[in-house]
């Protein structure tokens, strides 16, 4: 029996994103799938290795309390920024792609691209 915790859910979410990448032809849905994968990774990082009852490592924490590992959280702040950047860049490129090829379907865009060549 697989426990329902952050780790298993994040792996599930990750592969939901992968499924979206494989099965959806829509460019926007591909970008959304990448975002889903990113969220899954963030969830994985901050829930892995966490002890129940630990407090976040913010400000002065009393010595007696157990503090969560600060490193994954610091890393994930960076990753959130990267994720937003990637999504924004992807969507901007999509606007250009749509203007040039007039379609949101990968298959159709590919055909038109080869026609251009």
């Amino acid at each position, binding site marked *: 029996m697989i426990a329902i915790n952050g780790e298993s859910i994040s792996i599930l979410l*990750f592969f939901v*994103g*992968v499924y979206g*990448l*494989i*099965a*959806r*032809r829509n*460019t926007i849905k*591909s*970008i959304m799938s*990448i975002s889903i*994968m*990113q969220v*899954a*990774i963030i969830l*994985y*990082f901050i829930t*892995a*290795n966490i002890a129940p009852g630990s407090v976040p490592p913010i400000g002065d924490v009393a010595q007696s309390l157990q503090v969560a590992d600060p*490193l*994954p959280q610091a*890393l994930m702040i*960076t*990753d959130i920024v*990267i994720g937003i*950047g*990637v999504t924004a*860049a*992807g969507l901007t*490129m*999509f606007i*250009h*792609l749509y203007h*040039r*090829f007039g379609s949101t379907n*990968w*298959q159709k*865009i*590919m055909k038109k*691209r*080869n026609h*251009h*060549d």
Partner: protein
Amino acid sequence: MINLHWLILLPIIFGTVVKLIPLKTAKKLIVLFQAALLLSSAMIFIEVRKNGTILENIGGWPDTIGITLRADLLASAMVLLTCLLFLAMITFVQNKHYADHLFFFLFLSLESLIVGIFLSNDLFNIFVLIEAATLIITILIMYKKANVAIYDGMMYFLINVVAMSFFLMGLGMLYKKIGVLDFYALETALSQVKDPQSLILPYAFMITAVSLKAALMPLFSWLPKAHGTPSAPSVVSAILSGLYVKIGIYLFIRLQTAFLPLIDTSELFVILGFITAIVGFVLAFAQNDLKLLLAYSTVSQIGLIMIGINMGTPHAYWGGLYHIMNHAVFKSTLFLTAGMIITEYQTRNMNEIKGVFRHMPTVGVATVLSILGIVGAPLFNGSISKYLISYGSTGTWIEYGLIFINLGTIIVFVKYSQLLFGDSNKKETAHSDILEKAVVLCLSILCFLGGILGSALITLLFKVNFPVDLLSDGIKLLLFLASLLIGILIYYGLFKKKNYFAVFNSIELGFNEICLSITLFFAFMVVYLKITL
């Protein structure tokens, strides 16, 4: 000697500041700056060569906590190569119309990021740098804003982001098990792990991403599109194909070394490299587009390098590393000359380009020298590394496989060299830019020097000594001449009239299919590791 982090920061800072200076002066300043950077990277290399690895903890944190930069011999040699190639590229674009402030900013930032990836010792740091580099490369691919390039750029961007998501997921799992993200600490920590089964998932995730970056067999379909995009500036193609794809190989070497005590997949990757090499040259031969042919040939050479570094013998390993350097030199020369030929003839179709030798003599000479390098002609750099790889694999089936791969490379470049001969229907010689000619000529002479001074260079770069006889090895020479003859015969006998491989051109993977192949590769790695461990 400057600190390591300046090597990473200076190009970005300079690229930003230069925006304040008028373009004409700025271009010259950038060349000077790049020369200074090359000099300082050479000084760092000498320092590493003399006194061993340099380790720098940024921010003064103790080891394994903060970000560390680490310059060992391999890393500093790669940095030296990076600075050299960028100097050549920046000299090359001096008189190009697309070289404006923004281009130089992006180009210099790319240099910083590449140097950063080579020097970085922290896995998460590498992830961040690669993501940033992906974005910059995408913009550079799309730089001329042609329709085709926008599709290719977006494809490149999304595929690489997906791959890096796999990498980050693997990194998370690795951190959960081991608790460190530092390469050096990783090696120590992994040697303590008793049960290799628990590392299957993180390893499979990370190696999938790295294999995609290195463009191994099922995962290379993004590379020709990105490297051979018709409208991308030729310097960008040259850097991508000559240098950037080596980052995948570099990371692969680092990961394999870290995981070696637990997970040994070198046999699998020898086979994958072999398949990659063969598929690469078959597809290269099928192309009629100048740049696409070169891009597929890169795939083939990557396969060769993978065979070398996974063979497990010192000769093959160092031969593979030397081939990384060599391939960087001759492939970037070939891309630059291809760019010049395309600008002159206004077409990318190989059948329409004739008589480059007579029409553009300097470009012709540079092309011939680098072709001799890539096919491994005696006295040229390719022959040294290919000889070392085949020496290291003596007694296995790979030894004969390598002869076959080299034969394939020869056939591809016999086809490529067709554009050198014949009559161009143009009266006088072309007026190419003098700087461009100088750069391609210098780089192609490097191919020759890398062959003549082969063993000395290997000793200088990697501190290992392999005596390589240049001509006394008669078998090597005979083998090359025989393959050359057979290659020419096969080309003129079979393929001159009809390109039988052209059917492969119709097979093209879309975005969804590439994602599927990434997932399948990942699944295959998991199953393979489950069975073998």
